[in-house]
Each structure stands twice: as C-alpha cells, then as structure tokens.
C-alpha cells in the first residue's frame, strides 16, 4: 500500500514537472515573439526616418536644378 502511494505521488510530481516545462517553453516563445515585434517596429521607424530625410533631399535637389 505504501509503495503504491509513493508511486502515485511520484507520477503526480512528474506530471506537474512536465507541465511546468511546457509553460516555460511557451513563455520563451512569447518573449521571442515580443522581441521580434520590437525589432520590426524599430525597422519601420528607421525606414520612415530615412524616407523623410530622402524626401527633403529630393525637394532641395529640385530647387538646386532650378538655379
């Protein structure tokens, strides 16, 4: 009887450990996705800044051509 109880508790502990590992993996994936999101956001902001600067240059170059 005692052995059976120990076995049962052992199995329960194993199940809870597996579940914990799964949750940790999920958390890692979510963190990774968030990092990717922030990278994309950075890239978009950079693209906008660059485009803005390029537009200003284009405008100024048109003025330069007219002189």
């Amino acid at each position, binding site marked *: 009887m005692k052995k059976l109880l120990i076995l*049962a508790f052992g199995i329960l502990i194993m199940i809870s450990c597996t579940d914990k590992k799964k949750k940790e*993996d999920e958390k890692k*994936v*979510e963190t*990774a996705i968030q990092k990717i999101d922030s*990278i994309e956001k950075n890239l978009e902001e950079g693209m906008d800044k660059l485009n803005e*600067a390029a537009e*200003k*240059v*284009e405008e100024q170059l048109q003025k330069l051509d007219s002189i």
Partner: protein
Amino acid sequence: MKHIKIIASIVMFFAFIGTQQVMAQGQGKGKEKSVEVKQKGKEKAKQVKEELEQEAKQKKEKAQGKKEKIEKSKDQDRDPKLKEKKDKKEYKGKGNAYGRDKNGMSGREFGQMRSNEAKEKIEEQERNIREREDILRRGRERVKKANERIKESREKKEITDEEVKVKEEVIRKTNERLSELSKKIEEQKEKVKKDKEALSKILFPKEEK
C-alpha cells in the same frame, strides 16, 4: 488508528485514479481537437507562407521594373518609390504576443513566421538604404555641377553678386540636407546590423512530438 490510515490511503488512491480518468477524458477530447487545430494551423501556415512568397515575388518584380525606370530617367533623379511605399499597406503586429490570435498556429510556428517576416523587412530596409545611398551620391554630383556652373557664370560675369549669394545659399542648404541624409543612412546601417544580430540570436525551443 490502523483502520483510519488504511481508509485514508484508499480514499486518496481512488481520488488519484478519478483525477487521472477525468484528465484522460479531457485529453482524449482535447487531443482530437488539438489534432484538428494543428492540421488547420499547418494549412493556414502554408497559406500564409505561400502568400508571403507571392508578395515577395511581386515586390521583386516591381522593384526591378522601377529600377529600370529610374535608370532611364537618371536625369530627372526622381524616386517614385518614396510615395508608393507610404501608401503600401503592410502587415503590422497587433501589439503584445500574449493573447494574440495566431490563426490556429502553435506559438513556435507563429514565432518562426514572424521571424521570417522580420528577416524580409531587414532585407527591404537594406535595399532601401542602398537606394538612399544612390540618391546621396547623385545629389553630391549635382551639387558639384551647380558649383561649377556658378563659378563659370561668375567668371563670365553673367550673374550679379546677389544672385550668386542666393544660389550659394541653395547649395548650402542642399549640402546640409545631404549630410543629414548621410548621417541617417549611417545610423540605419548600424541599426540594421544590430537588428540582424538580435534576430539571429532569437531561438525557439524545439517542439515535442
């Protein structure tokens, strides 16, 4: 006392078996559902992948067409991509990854899809930087030519000192803008490099089967 111990052990044993059965039933139902969801997710992932590939192809074709046009109209030095890019509607993340609708995909699949998208965006930004460098180079050439023109007309006394001043002011402003652009290009190059590194460091845990 002995009886109480035995009864308590039996009750615990049955309680454990009961929980296991409930869990197994739940998993049985859940398994069917999860298999369905997984299949749907994989199909959707495939669809999304195909769509992305098609988009990338279309973009490449468009980019090639535009490059040819730009080369033809080198004298005009206009960049029609600028306005078009602003109008383009791109897929944007919906904020936090938590609680996001992942189209039935597993977190890992979704993450890898997002990672691929980010890689494509980095490539796009690199192309963008190269184009801006081209604009910068051509802009500097045009400033040089304008300077020469002013010098010539000053020597031939075709223009007054005031006119020269106005023209030099335009050149000065153009130079300012060009150096701003150059600075931003350098900044973006650094950023892209860092983002590329950061993206390559992001790893997803292996999926258990």
